[in-house]
């Protein structure tokens, strides 16, 4: 459903002041004759391709709060949840605004996986990349009662006995991460796909599963209480709450796959808009509020800008496509 939240009603008054603040940044971009980007009179149309309360929504609203708090954007920002079709609706809406510098959206895993699954008119590479801000990474856990204490024992056991690993969905990083990890570490496993994190967590707690992968944020409570034992983390840096857990890279099995949480503009957005947003996001990621967002959502801060982010997206897409095609999940 479409919902409009006007997040800065007091903004029109402050508009003039903020333009003065933002102007030097915009001038850093090649000067364009007609207008300075961004104009305080234009409302920024922020598409959230998922419903309220989800990871994408929280990220978008956190960035908007920071933009408002530090007066980084001169005009009004209007955030709309355009949910549907695993992001196809929202990003399809942004795709339709080709060239418009006042449309913007945040990405998440479905930005890569949905076009692989469905006939979306757009591909991740079509959009103007601004920045990758963080990645969602996974932790491999076993039941707290398990005899397996660490990842070395886990791999050893997996080489000797048939094991299964649970995750959410198949066309998903939950499937791709353990598949690539197992390939590198030299073991085999059966992947058990679930509809939701809660079903797979109870399956592991009930001892139906041997292990599962999941987003650490959702299971930290169970890890803290000792009901689940974390063995290995797929990201580059281990989040605070999982201190002491090795990364796959530490073991020499770096898989180089993660879900991109980034910022995009419509296809063929003007260059000055792209560079304005890159400069602005450089300020956003330095704020304490952003650090708090990263911490409380247990994300891995991974920041790359502009075309490098574009390359990252197409690499991720191709990597996913390859793994999924090899198991027959997609054609």
């Amino acid at each position, binding site marked *: 459903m479409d919902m409009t939240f006007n997040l800065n009603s007091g903004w029109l008054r402050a508009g003039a002041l903020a333009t003065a603040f933002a102007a030097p940044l915009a001038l850093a971009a090649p000067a364009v004759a007609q207008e300075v980007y961004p104009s305080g009179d234009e409302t920024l149309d922020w598409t959230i391709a998922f419903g*309220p309360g989800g990871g994408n929504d929280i990220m978008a609203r956190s960035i908007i709060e920071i933009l408002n708090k530090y007066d980084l954007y001169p005009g009004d920002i209007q955030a709309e949840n355009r949910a*549907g079709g695993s992001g196809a609706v929202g990003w399809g809406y942004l795709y339709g605004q080709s060239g418009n510098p006042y449309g913007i959206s945040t990405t998440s895993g479905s930005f890569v996986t949905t076009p692989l699954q469905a006939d979306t008119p757009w591909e991740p590479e079509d959009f103007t990349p601004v920045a990758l801000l963080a990645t969602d990474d996974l932790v491999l856990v076993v039941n707290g009662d398990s005899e397996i204490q660490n990842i070395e024992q886990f791999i050893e056991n997996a080489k000797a006995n048939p094991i299964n690993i649970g995750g959410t969905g198949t066309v998903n990083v939950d499937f791709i991460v353990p598949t690539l990890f197992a390939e590198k570490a030299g073991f085999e496993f059966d992947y058990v796909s679930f509809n939701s994190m809660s079903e797979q967590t109870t399956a592991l707690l009930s001892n139906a599963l041997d292990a599962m992968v999941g987003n650490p944020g959702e299971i930290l409570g169970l890890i803290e209480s000792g009901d689940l034992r974390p063995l290995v983390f797929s990201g580059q840096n281990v989040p605070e709450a999982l201190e002491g857990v090795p990364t796959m890279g530490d073991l020499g099995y770096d898989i180089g796959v993660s879900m991109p949480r980034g910022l995009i503009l419509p296809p063929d957005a003007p260059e000055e808009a792209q560079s304005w947003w890159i400069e602005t996001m450089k300020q956003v990621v330095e704020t304490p509020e952003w650090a708090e967002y990263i911490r409380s959502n247990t994300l891995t801060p991974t920041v790359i800008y502009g075309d490098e982010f574009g390359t990252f997206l197409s690499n991720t897409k191709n990597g996913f496509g390859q793994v999924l095609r090899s198991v*027959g999940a997609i054609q």
Partner: protein
Amino acid sequence: MDIFSDLVMGLTIAISPINILYLLIGAVVGMIVGVIPGFGPSAGLAILLPVTFGMDPIGAIMMLAAIYYGAMYGGTITSILLNTPGESATVASTFDGFPLAKQGRAGPALVMQAVASFVGGTVGVILITILAPMFAQVSRSFGPPEYFLLALMGMLTLIVMIGAQWKLGVISALIGFALGTVGVDLETGQSRYTFGSAELIGGIYFIPIAIGLFGLGELFYAFYSGLHKTGSGGIVEYDKEERFWPTAQDWLSTRITMLRCSVLGFVVGVIPGAGATIASLMAYSTERSLSKNGDNFGKGEMAGLVAPETANNAASSGAMIPLLTLGIPGSASTAVLLAAFLLWGLRPGPLFMEQNPEFAWGLIASMYLGNMALLAISIFAIPLFVQIIKVPYRVLGPCVVVVCALGTFSVHASFVETFLMFGAGIVGFFMRLYGFSAAALVLALVLGPLAEEALRQTMTISRGSFAIFVERPPSLWIIAITIALVVLLPLLNRFGNSSSGKAEKAGQ
């Protein structure tokens, strides 16, 4: 003693004026959200979630939780008056609720559903208060084998739904199973029958189908039989003076049902993923097979309305157990509540109640108050709601079409689902005309994918061996309970019937 002091502490927190205000707002919003077909508690919660940014978490959770269980009160009103379930957990309430209204007993039906909701909700909170740790064990003992057996148990309900014209019933169920195969195959990730549509990746959601089949189907049928030409309502009659309060017989015949279905609903609610919808359907079929008047179910039997209503409210309380004790959401609505916890910087998990006693017990205490408030609001609002039936049908009909369409669209903002709803409406009309079973279709659509996924997960885990179903104690329990319900109880009932008349009094 410990529990008692915790609860008193919770009450003192819950009872502050500002928190009571939040609670009442939540209760009223919940009722409204429940009344609008399709627009369920999870959508209502998700919309209000951003409002709670910066609110005191305790007041905020009281409000959100009240929306959640309040929707179960509101959802039945349209089930009874218009044969349109307001919410997925109230599909089963149409089976006897609407026939009751047709008999002119809309008033008593609405009062009884409010009371049943209250009993279910309150018994649920009492069970949370005293037995939360014990039930936490139940939630964590459920893996794929147990879900599969549970789905099978639910499918026994199908036999009850199929009814007298069994050939038509079986065809209806098969259509439901077929629709259930649409969407991404969970195991292989391949898309089935999605025709490249991104909106069908997630499968066919049963809410648009249920609204179409029941609500629109009934509406088209009413026009077909010429109701719009008669002056007033016509489908259902209501007479305020004589027909508002339930009769003594209504109370007496349903008191056991209420208690039994409270416990049943609660236990099903505790199991993550099963939820209020399955609880209400299971309660309906259980009561039908236990009742002496089983043949009257579906024709306007009060117990047939009370059973699902008690169960869905008890289940919504039960679903709080995995949320509070494990940090695992059992349903779409509790998933939004979990997101809210995270948003407020709380960390749900087994240590949650220990670390945040004010929050947890404030919430539990507020649920007692919330259920009382909802009972009062419901009873006062009934005379308002029954005005709906006094609206001439030629005016009411188009309004229902608009509300159904808006409600369906509001869930996922999906045009595909809205068209499916209209399509299901036309199919529903013909099903009604030729005696097919819409209930069997919807139930098959709910249970089919659940059973398929759970069985395939189980087979992957057990590497193809069916022994897993008897190796796991929880599985064995479910098998034993199923056998008891299906084989032993009806036998005992029959035996009791023929031998003496005493059982009649107790069992009715």
